[in-house]
């Protein structure tokens, strides 16, 4: 099997819920294997993220393709929505356990790492959530540590954002002003896409988080940063299945990709573009097809025969 060429692993950004759910700019990778990103108003370029909070909602849903789980974590700024797909069976037992403990009203603090996942809503909006990769139930001290880390990361972004606003809006000016390279490009895109951004709302979240971490829960009035107004409801979005694929589940998509790979492979695999193009004829966007393709490769259903060409494991 040929060496797999993948992008380097993306770092897990520490981010409060509000910054993430207010983001609606999606950057699809330009290269064949580039990961896609959600760009926030503060210019964070999110592929993987590390979040934490109190498990506030937890739900199992039976779909045509199998069981899925949805949940949300509350941090000082709002709710982080996460999901576990039917194609992640290794997490299902854990989800069942969370579900039953949650149903018994046991307060659970979670720290989770997952991939940014953006979906179009019916009215053309963008809805951001997290596809869970790994998580842990944590104690208050670990949560306090996460609050400090997320505050630190957010303050760094606010600081960079403010410095960047006084500059000429181009890459050269950013470079001269030492705007960090992980933020420079995405800050330019964010500026062009979001227009005016007031970083103060994110500063509120930071202050609340630091106060909480220091044990000063009451120091900051609870209504100072109204959190979840305007937040699209994850549960209705999904119930409507208002996705570009017309509600195709990951399993449907897997099936389409697998069948296509098996049927047209004439010996040297099937090109990535061909696969994505085929999915498009089934109304499956690249954003939807790609994670499923990744998944199939991870699960060793498909493998990269040569660069950019995939073979099915059962192909002759």
């Amino acid at each position, binding site marked *: 099997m*040929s060496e797999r*060429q993948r992008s380097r692993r993306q770092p897990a950004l520490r981010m409060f819920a509000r910054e993430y759910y207010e983001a609606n700019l999606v950057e699809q990778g330009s290269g064949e294997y580039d990961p896609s990103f959600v760009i926030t108003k503060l210019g964070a370029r999110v592929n993987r993220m590390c979040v934490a909070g109190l498990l506030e909602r937890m739900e199992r849903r039976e779909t045509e393709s199998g069981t899925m789980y949805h949940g949300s974590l509350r941090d000082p700024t709002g709710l982080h929505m996460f999901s576990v797909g039917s194609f992640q069976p290794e997490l299902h037992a854990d989800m069942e356990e969370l579900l039953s403990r949650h149903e018994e009203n046991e307060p659970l603090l979670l720290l989770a790492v997952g991939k940014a996942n953006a979906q179009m809503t019916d009215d053309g909006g963008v809805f951001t959530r997290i596809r869970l990769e790994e998580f842990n139930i944590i104690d208050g001290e670990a949560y306090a540590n996460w609050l400090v880390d997320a505050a630190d990361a957010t303050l760094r972004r606010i600081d960079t954002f403010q410095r960047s606003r006084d500059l000429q809006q181009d890459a050269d000016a950013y470079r001269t002003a030492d705007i960090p390279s992980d933020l420079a490009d995405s800050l330019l895109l964010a500026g062009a896409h979001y227009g005016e951004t007031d970083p103060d709302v994110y500063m509120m979240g930071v202050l609340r988080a*630091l106060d909480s971490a*220091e044990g000063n829960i009451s120091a900051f009035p609870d209504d100072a940063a109204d959190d979840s107004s305007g937040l699209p409801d994850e549960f209705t979005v999904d119930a409507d299945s208002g996705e570009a694929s017309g509600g195709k589940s990951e399993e449907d998509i897997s099936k389409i990709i697998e069948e296509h790979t098996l049927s047209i492979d004439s010996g040297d695999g099937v090109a990535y573009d061909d696969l994505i193009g085929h999915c498009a004829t089934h109304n499956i966007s690249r954003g939807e097809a790609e994670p499923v393709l990744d998944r199939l490769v991870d699960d060793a259903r498909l493998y990269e025969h*040569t660069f950019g060409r995939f073979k099915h494991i059962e192909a002759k």
Partner: protein
Amino acid sequence: MDELVEKVLEHAPDADAEEVKKEFERYRDEFLIPPKDAMRSVLRKFEVAEEDVETAARSALSSGARAGRKVDRFEELDAKDMNVTIEVSVVTYTPRVQMVRGEERQIAFGWIEDNPWGDSADRIRWDFKDWGNHAENLAPGSVVRLEGTSVNEWQGKRSLNINQSSRVVVLREGGPSVSIATSDPISISDAGSKEGFVTIVGRVISRRDEVISKKDGSGDLPVVKGRLADETGSLGFICWSEFEHEPGTLLRIEGASVRRFRDNPELNISDRTKIEVFHDNNFASAEQLATTSMLSIGDLLDGARDVSLIAQLNSWSSREFTNADGEQRTVWGGDLLDPSGRCRVSAWCELPIDAANLPMFVRLDGVRVRSWQGTPDITVDEPEQVIQLKEAPWETIDAEQHWVEYTLHDLTSSGSKRGIETSGTIVAVRGDCGIIQRCPECRRVLRDGACAEHGDMPGERDLRLRFVLDDGISCASLLLNRESSEALLGKSMDEVVEVFDRDGAETFVNQMREQWFGRSVVMRGRAIVDEQGAMLMADQLELDNTPVEKRSEKVREQWGVVA
């Protein structure tokens, strides 16, 4: 001949047919050059662009030329192939200003290798010439798809022409792109971060004559090696032609090329480089530069030569071995420390070091840097390169406690290092933590009892832990070998085997995840950084026990957020 005239007219539509024919006849009659052989000259005469001459001539002269070929390997190519598409990795890229028919043209040549995604041992290297100023897309280290290139054969040796009309698609980014020659001097530290032609002003710190044996056995080549410095740093040089300047001389060197030997930049001076003695009374003296050109262990890069440094030697021992020629040889080795880090030193000659006097301080001059197990180490070839210091440059460092702190982001964006400490959060616990079986031949991990290289093998048990460490800006694999894992788990490998056999691998991994996932940790050990990313080999791993109030205070202080 008329056919050839027509071909020329295809590429030079403004030319007059009679004129072209006359030119061919002139070559034939005056110089006894047959029309076919005169084709290139005639094309040039009628001002066909240089990059098209070769293609035009080839297509005119050979009916057998195939067009539009996509190949995986060089060996599939024919000497007449044109419009070739192939994926290659770029090894070197050397720009050069060449006079082409009285005009200065920026061209470049270098090496490319096929099979860029495959085993590096299974690659074929070819020369290429870039006629189309593709410097930005042909950075050394990158993997590119070349489209519309043509094969060139010259005295039986084949190479690839990348033409102006060729397309270069970058599939994987390489290092810095090669800079175009300029006559404005830049600082030596800037020159060291570039690739390609530069002009510098620097003082000769050291020089010595050496002889290089040519690889093809065709003889020896005298060269001069040494080091140049300015206030910003120092750079090794290698001169392939005469170099009569003594240490201390200030030189202006124009049009020398910076190339990397392993990770280390080196200034290549050829007979095309312009060297002149430079006068500047304000330029740092040789004595001043002698101290600034000293390197610290933390700065060492694989492949560096003529390195000077001061270090603390903490251990010294020798080892006998039999080399490939059956000779008995001895190699000496020890551990070096300085405030910036630690490394190993090995010596191919006996040094007057009495192990009873350790630790001692030494000054090393003109030594080499080689990578061993991924991190740069020092090699001493001559006894004169080592001087024992009478005065201690710093208070003796305790080797057991000496770890140099880096942020994870700084570690992942610099060279490999030993003796480092860094911190971050564990954001993944790999499913293959715990007991594994290794191939007794090559130490690869067996999958289903088989080695990728050696097939079915009786495995040898080993214990290791694999995590991903992440600080929110960068991430790196974090590995613990058997010894470090045993220390972390507080169990011997045999005890872990028992747990494994009793509860199964999954239970073990779940327990590891419960215990370590999402935790802030501090690791100490070494960092190996290459184009695949960074790998941290932990000697020690522990929870970061900084109280949360302290962490919060630090964050408020750094960003000016008052409580």
